[in-house]
């Protein structure tokens, strides 16, 4: 149901494609545009929150380059459970969005 929307930034479109792929994976056949947009915003906000929290932990430790431990602490603060993550990563029905190749320029 995601039609081409020329006014939308590419990143948001990619985010919406990712959300749509997750919906199909869960068992949905179709989705309302409104619902996809809300989920894309939730996803964006979650990533930003992880980034912000990890950055705080990184700076408290007087570092400028984040480590895996900073991300780990951020996940704990956000209440994410790590134990199931490995299992989730290896699920058989996982999908990924193929990278779009640039079209050959018309000279």
């Amino acid at each position, binding site marked *: 149901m995601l039609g081409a929307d020329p006014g939308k930034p590419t990143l948001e479109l*990619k985010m919406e494609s990712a959300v749509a792929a997750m919906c199909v994976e869960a068992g*949905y056949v*179709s989705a309302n545009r409104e619902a996809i947009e809300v989920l894309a915003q939730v996803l964006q906000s979650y990533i930003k929150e992880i980034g912000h929290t990890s950055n705080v932990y990184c700076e408290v430790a007087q570092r400028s380059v*984040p480590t895996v431990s900073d991300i780990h602490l951020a996940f704990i603060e956000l209440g994410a459970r790590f134990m199931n993550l490995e299992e989730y990563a290896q699920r058989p029905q996982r999908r990924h969005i193929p990278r779009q190749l640039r079209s050959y320029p018309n000279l």
Partner: protein
Amino acid sequence: ESSPAAENKSELSLVDFCTQLEDYTPTIPDAVTQHYLQMSGLNTDDPRIIRLVSLAAQKFLSDIINDSLQHCKMRGAPQGSRKGTKDKRYVLTMEDLSPALAEYGINVRKPMYFT
């Protein structure tokens, strides 16, 4: 309260897991996650960190979507079912998504409508 030994073990398993992520492709593209991480002030080029964040965000969203699917099934949504076939075609709507998001503390409201 988890014991220090258990915490140490989870930390070790996390490091192992991160090394596995080097040749893993999450559904959310790396460039997208990296952009939003940069927007929040976290500058990193390490693909392991980016993919770990992608995967965690993906799992968070996937849990919400699964919850809304359960809501949809419990409601017995007749909307998408085809005539003659028994398999139901589920459609993601705000009606199912709102209660699922509310369970995670996210309250969705429509903007004010002015005529």
